[in-house]
């Protein structure tokens, strides 16, 4: 690195050798006693960086811990029953015979029922807010639907016990029995409490999540898609159907699946109104039991190790199902809302 290689300009100003001369000027400078003294240590930076990485790692280890706890503590039941645990329908803590089928059935049926009720309503609300609603109402409406999400599960349950259940018992169930009783889904004594009540309260609870994610998906549909359809002389509904809903299909399905994930794991409100009886009945009027509610009711009373282990195995199954459902939903929502990978910014 010889100095010849450096193209130095010829100039008239007093030439100063950049090497030793600059050292000299530094000494004469008023800044020779700098306000900031001392060498900067690299250690705090490294320490901080690794602490933050540790926090990130902690999040991952939390999940590992959850998986480990669930698997390790359900071994007893797994070894005793194997796969048949999920196919047997007897649940007898006294004789230590455990089968999870009634709970799986209850979880699946109550969740599907809630989707049947919630999806049209939630999508309708989302469409109304994004496409039809006057701007002044928009903020208020979305705030109100978000408020639904902020109400704790136990309060939904409380309301369901004292308001929804009597309502179902005196008005809805007799009506359904009379008009749709022939299907076999709406037969038997109208207790009020049962699968139907669980489905309805779940629906009310998952509407906000489905609706807010659908809204998010609808708003990212590019404006020109709407304008394109409108330019063809379409009415507003045709514009929504062809220009908006069609483009947002995958995202809406994702939102619905996300709602399903929420419904599968929902515990308190369901426990309070489903009747808590481990039976498989065709009628939606009959009481049932879900995986989450059997945990809520029986976990702290489980006296034997086998009983506890069987309950934890139900927890493990519930965990696996919900994470698969959620992962699927996330992927579908991302496919719509993320046109471009975030990397492109850098």
């Amino acid at each position, binding site marked *: 690195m010889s100095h010849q290689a450096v193209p130095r300009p010829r100039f008239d100003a007093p030439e100063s050798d950049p090497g030793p001369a600059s050292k000299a000027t530094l000494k004469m400078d008023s800044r020779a006693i700098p306000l900031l003294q001392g060498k900067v240590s690299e250690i705090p930076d490294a320490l901080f960086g690794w602490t933050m990485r540790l926090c990130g790692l902690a999040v991952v280890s939390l999940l590992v811990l959850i998986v480990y706890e669930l698997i390790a503590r359900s071994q007893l039941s797994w070894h005793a029953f194997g796969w048949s645990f999920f196919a047997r329908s007897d649940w007898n803590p006294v004789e230590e015979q455990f089968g999870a089928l009634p709970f799986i059935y209850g979880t699946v049926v109550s969740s599907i029922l809630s989707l049947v009720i919630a999806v049209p309503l939630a999508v309708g609300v989302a469409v109304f807010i994004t496409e039809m609603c006057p701007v002044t109402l928009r903020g208020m409406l979305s705030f109100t639907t978000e408020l639904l999400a902020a109400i704790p599960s136990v309060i939904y349950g*409380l309301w369901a016990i004292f308001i929804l259940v009597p309502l179902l018992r005196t008005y809805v169930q007799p009506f359904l029995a009379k008009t749709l009783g022939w299907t076999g889904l709406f037969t038997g004594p109208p207790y009020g409490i049962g699968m139907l009540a669980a489905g309805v309260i779940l629906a009310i609870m998952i509407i906000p999540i489905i609706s807010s994610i659908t809204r998010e998906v609808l708003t990212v549909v590019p404006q020109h898609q709407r304008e394109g359809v409108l330019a063809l002389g379409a009415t507003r509904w045709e514009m929504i159907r062809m220009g908006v809903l069609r483009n947002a299909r995958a995202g809406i399905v994702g939102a619905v699946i996300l709602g399903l994930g929420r419904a599968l794991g929902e515990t308190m409100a369901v426990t309070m109104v489903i009747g808590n009886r481990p039976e498989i009945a065709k009628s939606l009027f009959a009481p049932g039991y879900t995986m*989450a509610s059997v945990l809520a009711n029986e976990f702290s009373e489980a006296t034997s190790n086998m009983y506890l282990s069987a309950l934890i195995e139900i927890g493990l199954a519930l965990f696996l199902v919900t994470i698969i459902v959620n992962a699927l939903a996330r992927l579908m929502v991302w496919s719509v809302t993320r046109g471009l990978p975030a990397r492109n910014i850098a």
Partner: protein
Amino acid sequence: MAKTVLQISWRRRIIDHFMTGVAVLTVVLVLLPLGAIFAYLIYKGAGSINWAFLTQTPKPVGEPGGGMANAIVGSMVILAIASLMGVPLGIGAGIYLSEYGRNRYGDVVRFVSDVLNGVPSIVIGIVAYGLVVLRQGHFSALAGGVALAIMMVPTIARTTEQMLLLVPQAIREAAYGLGIPRWRTTLSITLRTATSGVITGVMLAFARVAGETAPLLFTAFGNQYWNWKSDQPTAALSLQIFSYAISPFDEWHRQAWAGALVLIILIVAAVAAVRFAVKHGTLAGA
């Protein structure tokens, strides 16, 4: 020819109006239960909240009066423990994601947070039971706090990340250019600029776990009396509401409504504060 065109457009217009009507109907159907829940909460709860409710412990079955003072305090203790553990960890993870995790490892953490967010709360309860209750040998406020902390972390981490990413890179560079070390820049410049957003995330997480019941059933367990030790069964507002709601006594039903109203007032206050912070915070102008 002209006639058919006219007819189609007439039909199409009817359908258009019909679908608008359907959409309005769905809004009404969704708002109805919300209105009903709040109406009943206020109608049934307001009449039952009194001084005794806020200051006394539960009375035995059959005796009128009593309150949920111990449950209100218990909830606060459990939430304090949860926040003490969950908030720093969540913010730390958020800082990692935005400042150090723009790579494959970060993507893993990001995905895991989203997965954790979807884990049913009752399952988190089982894990906290295994981690704390079984090891300690008894139910405790600590176990309840751990369960709620686990639930807070992913929400806080992801919102913190998003808020920090909103801070322009130029602000970080300005700090680096002044010779401010990276850790100091992150804490005193980046995090400080995003403060209101990060607080929003923390409060959202807080509001979400404040009303949780399922993860407390077999961790905090509940208690009819005062308890000042963090290693003993502890009462919580949500647990008390649950056990009173499914009880057969009118007096307890009445108190369940009162408890629910107190709980919802606390949570709505938090959500309103969040809205306020977002609207009037520094990020609103950015």
